[in-house]
């Protein structure tokens, strides 16, 4: 188990951190923590999108699962989901994995080789350069 797994077990850390929420975060996940046993949690920027089966099953989903699938009509990152649904990031990781296994969510974990590829970096650089500053001047206008 990774970071959150060994270290944030309720017995190990009785001290509350941050403001209390109405529901203790890992009650939602039945005490499970995020990393799927594979030793590495999904990156925060991992993209998730609802499947046709997921949307079809919306009426049968409850609470957080419903919220996640409904929010994923458009692709978004785990971080965006967590922020918009006000859930702890690791809770979203666990629930997204559940929903993926149930076929209700497609999960796209970015491949580091792809994101660090020179052509991708060049596209990022070109894309950023085209962004105008507050005065409408882009950095590639010179």
């Amino acid at each position, binding site marked *: 188990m*990774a*970071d*959150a797994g060994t*270290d*944030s077990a309720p017995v*190990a*850390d009785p001290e509350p*951190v*941050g403001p209390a929420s109405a529901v203790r975060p890992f009650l939602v996940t039945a005490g499970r923590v995020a990393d*799927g046993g*594979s030793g*590495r*949690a999904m*990156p*925060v*920027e*991992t*993209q998730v*999108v*609802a*499947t*046709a*089966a997921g949307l079809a099953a919306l009426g049968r989903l409850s609470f957080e699962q419903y919220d996640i699938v409904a929010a994923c*009509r458009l*692709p*978004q*990152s785990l*971080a965006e989901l*967590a*922020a*918009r649904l006000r859930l*702890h*990031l690791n809770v979203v990781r666990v629930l997204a994995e559940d929903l*993926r*296994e149930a*076929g209700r969510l*497609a*999960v*796209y*974990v*970015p491949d580091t080789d*792809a*994101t*660090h*590829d*020179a052509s*991708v*970096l*060049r*596209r*990022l*650089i070109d*894309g*950023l*350069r085209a*962004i105008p*500053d*507050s*005065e409408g001047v882009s*950095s590639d206008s010179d």
Partner: protein
Amino acid sequence: MASGPSPTPKGYRVTPTEPLVRGAAAPGAVRPPLPVKMVIAGGFGVGKTTAVGAISEIEPLTTEASITEVAAGVDDLTHTPRKTTTTVAMDFGCLTIDPTLKLYLFGTPGQERFGFMWDDIVEGAVGGLVIVDTRRLDDCYAAVDYFEHRGIPFAVAVNAFDGRVEHTLEEVRWALDVSEGVPVTVFDARERGSVRDALLVVLELALARTEG
């Protein structure tokens, strides 16, 4: 595109456990863009969220994440570092480059005194920007140490509060003891163009590394 099996888009790997939901994205669902992550680090109140907000296409969002705190406690007779997981608020934003590519900017929580393991947030980032307030230089040591230790390309950006900087860039470089290859610049976290240019410095560095 709406039905039938389709291959995993280029740039992705399937999640660790099979089966991946193949071609089952909802009819008409947009293929997710390739998400590229950069990290904005620095001490508390140094302008991380301001910088993210200056360039993000969405209002910065906040979520709770876990980071591991490695504290070398003086009361620890075993001399083994204590590791505890702390829940922190993380601000982030994003910028769509094109329908297939999206830049995410994550502000790592400002922590000064302890060693923090940000792997859960930073893993896979293409680069980092360490924002510095010259009045509180030591607030960014943890971030500089982290990026150097992890070998992540990063630049130091001095946030010019009210257009003023208390120390020269050379003094900042000396004080932070960063290596020659680490760019040290001045920027204004409130200005989109200024944030854009600071991010470009980091991306150019990351690109040079792939080509080097």
